[in-house]
């Protein structure tokens, strides 16, 4: 039985549908991310699961039991708030004990459970501190410990890393993932940060305007986006409008690009990820069977691990290409080069409904 069943849920604020007929399930021990820009309905979805909002339609079940009309304290759900929401007038220990006391855990278990959960988040020895004496990263660990100590059926993380600075964010991301795995807890992570979702979740649900756009693993969503929104939200692409004709795509500005075997024909969009475009100096060849487009390098950004090129094609169109800095590519600003694009790297999307 799935831990969470979110079935055909609607939620309106005023006249606006914040959550529009959304359904998904989360299995035992899975880490699922709700990913989308602000206002996409992901936070409302989280608040519906927590019980801070009530759905206008549909059902929410936790371990088979409908909780749609239940108060937050009647559901066994843990939540780590974006601002951590540690009680400022209580020590770390008292913050962690709060949930155990309210959930009726026997007092005799407090010490052992607290020690266990603090060890899990690597915060031993800080029990007596007050929240304001802790760094942002430490506060987050305490918030996580406080949520985990009551052993909820489901853990919700609201933008877990957004309040931390960029360097800390990356190291904590890996650590957070390890903590969640070792706790073995079913988790839903709400985030607008694609790399956060892709690194931590084993299943991603992309949302926009209250609807689910696509669901799948990070790889599925990145390499086969269901639509233009998903493709643009997760990564970048060079887009061409044109016509799909069998295994070739004719762009409106006159390029013909082999895209491999595709079903269907007619008006469509062609997307090419910048890092899938190879930049070759004239006279060199790389891939067999790739599309070859001539052009001139207009702008180059040297960013260290990668080099970004903006290449003006003969049609006048500019294409963005990202090259790994392997020390071998000597393409320079103003140089005539050619681009190689393999047919299997082309994303072809029908026009959006």
């Amino acid at each position, binding site marked *: 039985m799935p831990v969470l069943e979110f079935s055909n849920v609607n939620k309106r604020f005023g006249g606006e549908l914040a959550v529009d007929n959304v359904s998904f399930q989360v299995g035992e021990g899975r880490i699922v991310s709700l990913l989308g820009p602000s206002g996409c309905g992901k936070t409302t979805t989280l608040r519906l699961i*927590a*019980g*801070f909002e009530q759905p206008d339609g549909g059902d929410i079940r936790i371990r088979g039991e409908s909780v749609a009309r239940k*108060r*937050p*304290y009647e559901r066994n*759900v*843990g*939540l780590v*708030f*974006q*601002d951590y*929401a*540690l*009680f*400022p*007038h209580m020590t770390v220990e008292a913050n962690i004990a*709060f*949930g155990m006391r*309210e*959930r*009726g855990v026997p007092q005799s278990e407090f010490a052992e459970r607290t020690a266990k959960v603090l060890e899990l988040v690597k915060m031993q020895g800080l029990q007596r501190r007050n929240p304001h004496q802790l760094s942002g990263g430490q506060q987050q660990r305490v918030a996580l410990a*406080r*949520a985990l100590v*009551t052993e909820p059926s489901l853990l919700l993380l609201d933008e877990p890393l957004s309040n931390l600075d960029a360097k800390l964010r990356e190291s904590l991301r890996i650590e957070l993932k390890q903590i969640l795995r070792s706790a073995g807890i079913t988790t839903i992570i709400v985030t607008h940060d694609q790399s956060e979702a892709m690194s931590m979740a084993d299943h991603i649900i992309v949302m926009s305007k209250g609807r689910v756009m696509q669901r799948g693993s990070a790889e599925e969503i990145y390499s086969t986006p269901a639509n233009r929104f998903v493709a643009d939200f997760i990564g970048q692409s060079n887009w061409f409008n044109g016509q799909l004709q069998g295994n070739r795509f004719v762009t409106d500005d006159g390029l013909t690009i082999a895209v491999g075997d595709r079903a269907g024909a007619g008006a469509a969009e062609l997307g090419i990820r910048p890092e899938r475009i190879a930049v070759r100096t004239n006279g060199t060849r790389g891939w067999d069977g790739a599309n070859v487009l001539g052009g001139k390098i207009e702008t180059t950004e040297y960013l260290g691990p990668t080099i970004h090129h903006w290449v003006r094609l003969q049609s006048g169109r500019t294409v963005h290409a990202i090259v790994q800095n392997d020390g071998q590519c000597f393409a320079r600003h103003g140089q005539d080069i050619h681009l190689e694009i393999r047919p299997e790297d082309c994303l072809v999307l029908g026009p959006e409904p």
Partner: protein
Amino acid sequence: MKRFTDSLLGLVVLGVSIITVLFLVIPLLMAAVMSFDSREYLGQFPPPGLSTRWYTSFFSDAYYLKGLKVSLLLALTSTCLSTMVGVAAAFTLDRYRFPGREVLSAFFLSPLIVPHVIIGFSLLLFFSSIGLLDGFVRLVLGHLIITVPYVIRTTLASLVGIRKSFMEAALILGATESRAMWKITVPLAKTGIAAGAVFALAYSLDDVSVSLFLTDPNFYTLPVAMTNMMRSQFDLRIASASVLLMIMTIVLIWLLDRIAGLDNVVGQGVYHK
């Protein structure tokens, strides 16, 4: 030249401040000194000698003592009630958004603007028409009305600083709404609540205008007793009574400073961070 005008302005501001402070303090000091006057009659300042005769006289006068007793009892009773009512009202105004909320809020705070004489007179009419004649009950209700706005204001100001997520965190950790309020919101708002209570106590001790209308021969407050005596028997017991009230106020201000920090309450209106 620019510097000169600046310094001149600085001097003027400093001068005005000093005059203001002197103007506030000198009369109080004079009253305090006069209360120790050794003369039997009301004479010119300064007194030729000092004694505690007016205090002895004050404490042996049944009329004043009764006033002092009623004032203290009334201040404590009305402060307790107005703290409860004010905190409940502030929580409601802070938590819920409902039609008429602004009106209700203005209504709660209106006793700050309406002259107390008007409040006193209206209450007298109202209480008489409903047959409420007990002086103490009338005084408690009257003081409740004038002190509740202070409790609401200071409590509301401290509630504004409490993040909504604290309450939600308590709920998701298994606390009911009332438990969450008791364990999280009330402790976090306690400076505002305490400040409101101290203000309420101070205003209740000090009030004349509302009390004047609501007293009966058995229940009158110390300030009302002083006002009456001023007309019938003007002597320096009034000065000693003033000093006693002053001491009580100073103790309250000291308490307020200890609990909340005076700057927090008066300066910034108890807004957190």
